[in-house]
């Protein structure tokens, strides 16, 4: 009897707790749903518009395309002046990512392993370049690259983006390298590895995830930047983002094509994210947790 009476309040709290935890899960789901909805709505609207005709966009307000059309995409994919923009963008983004990583790797190693004259000042000075407003550099870059004959080339944009990507890559890689015990280096040297062979064969595989994260960030910041890439190009290396301004024609803006072009610029980013989805959480901590 004693047992039975004692169990009733226990049972009640049990149910109460179960209900509370369910409510908490629900409130989490609600928060995330609202936030993701907020993120997705503008993108949905862009996608929605890109599948409509201009007449429909301008004359009726519809939540879904009434007469679905892929004409806007066809316009872009059939016109080299359009699609070469994507090619140009991808070329300089990849060039930039490779250059940034190649120079940042040894530097990050030096910062993570050695103490040398002026190391701290140098590190902060590198970081200051990440803080340099592109607007400050736009005009000098224009003059610099014109004077050395690199204006309107992919390499010019790639080099210009190194301004903020190299410091970022050094910073990220240094964080990951600090996590690798120094004993590994020492063991390798004792085993007779040369610095180069050790670095490529042993060290780089150890920080592979860090390299991946750095590459992701370089790709990201180079892909999304417009001010410098637009200033440094006119025709041959013009990025897609700059070409988008072409939609302003004599008869007003071609909204459908503009939206389609916008959607297409999201695709490479979405692909990259899809491939790194399992590393995002760890990657964003930049090796610092």
């Amino acid at each position: 009897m004693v047992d039975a009476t004692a169990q009733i309040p226990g049972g009640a709290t049990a149910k109460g707790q179960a209900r509370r935890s369910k409510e908490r899960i629900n409130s989490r789901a609600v928060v995330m749903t609202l936030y993701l909805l907020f993120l997705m709505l503008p993108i949905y609207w862009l996608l929605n518009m890109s599948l409509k005709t201009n007449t429909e966009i301008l004359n009726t307000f519809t939540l879904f395309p009434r007469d679905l059309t892929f004409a806007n995409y066809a316009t872009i994919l059939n016109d080299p002046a359009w699609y070469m923009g994507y090619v140009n963008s991808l070329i300089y983004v990849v060039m930039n990512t490779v250059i940034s990583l190649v120079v940042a790797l040894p530097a990050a190693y030096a910062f993570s392993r050695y103490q040398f004259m002026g190391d701290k000042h140098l590190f902060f000075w590198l970081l200051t370049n990440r803080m340099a407003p592109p607007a400050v550099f736009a005009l000098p870059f224009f003059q610099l690259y014109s004077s050395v004959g690199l204006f309107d080339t992919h390499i010019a944009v790639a080099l210009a983006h190194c301004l903020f990507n190299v410091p970022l890559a050094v910073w990220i890689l240094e964080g990951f390298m600090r996590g690798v015990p120094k004993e590994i280096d020492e063991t390798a040297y004792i085993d007779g590895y040369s610095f180069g062979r050790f670095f490529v064969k042993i060290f780089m595989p150890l920080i592979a995830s860090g390299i991946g994260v750095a590459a992701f960030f370089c790709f990201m910041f180079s892909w999304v930047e417009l001010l410098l890439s637009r200033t440094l190009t006119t025709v041959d290396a013009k990025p897609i983002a700059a070409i988008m301004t072409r939609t302003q024609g004599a008869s007003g803006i071609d909204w459908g094509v503009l939206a389609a072009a916008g959607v297409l610029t999201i695709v490479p980013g979405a692909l990259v994210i899809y491939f790194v989805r399992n590393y995002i959480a760890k990657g964003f901590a930049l090796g610092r947790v």
Partner: protein
Amino acid sequence: MAKITLDNLAHSYLPNPASEDDYALKELNHDWDDGAAYALLGSSGCGKSTLLNIISGLLQPSQGRILFDGRDVTHAPTAARNIAQVFQFPVVYDTMTVRDNLAFPLRNRGRDEAYIAERVQEIARMIGMEEMLNKKARGLTADAKQKISLGRGMVRKDVNALLFDEPLTVIDPHMKWELRTQLKKLHHDFGHTMIYVTHDQTEALTFADKVVVMYDGRVVQIGTPEELFERPEHTFVGYFIGSPGMNVIPARIDGNKAYVNGSYVELSQSYRPLSGKVEIGVRPEYARLSQTDGLPVKVRRVEDVGRHKIIRAEFFGNDINIIADEGEQISADMNRVSFDAGHVNVYANDWRVQGEAA
């Protein structure tokens, strides 16, 4: 302080456990007596921590009930159970001072400041950290942090039980001894029900009144240190406790004789015919090497470990260990081993079989 009853308790980390193998903790019925000190002993992954977390309410069991003094708390949250638990790795609140860390559980329960200050002083003295009370916990060494964790576990006087999950793993050996002594003293003074999880037999045997040995998700024996030593209920207990562990030798049992390869060993009791895997178990302490008595044995190596000698030998193709006194002379012609019949246990399928008086 409370008596803790486990009723038909079992847990699986899988949502739909199909066979017994899916259970991390197999079905278990047990009473933890009020005010007793228990050690939960077993190798890693045997379900010790699972059991502990179920008792403290961090984990909901897949089946069965937990009762505190007869009150069902199976679904009650941790806070309602009023339990203290110390974990294997130090958990301290980095941004707080040592003092605030120790006071935290009391403040959360709304105790008045004068009482808190007094308790914190007391605990700080116990763990030897009075000097550091005003330091931030962040910069401390791992064992200082673990002492804080222990202190936080002990600061509340009115807990139903104190649970320790291998709390001394990160502590220096000499400090380990001291802290364990402190814990025993605490138990003696306040009489909390204590459950101490460990994989270290010395820790378990010196700390506890009763040791619960777990193996593969199952409680294989509960007993005093002496019982575990004299009558291991399962071959695992025999192996795990004692250094070196019990000798386990395959045998055939006939009445009060155990046949090993045609020769026999006398048993103090008589047994019915047994099926399955049949073995006899003898502690090295109850085996004796001599020139004349017993069965032939081939000595391989003698190790002098200080207090006594361990003789590694081969007995009809099985490795056995024999313990001899430090003063005893081992000569080359000692090639026979005899067992103390009263301390030879019989096992069928790893579980001990009770014999009948011969």
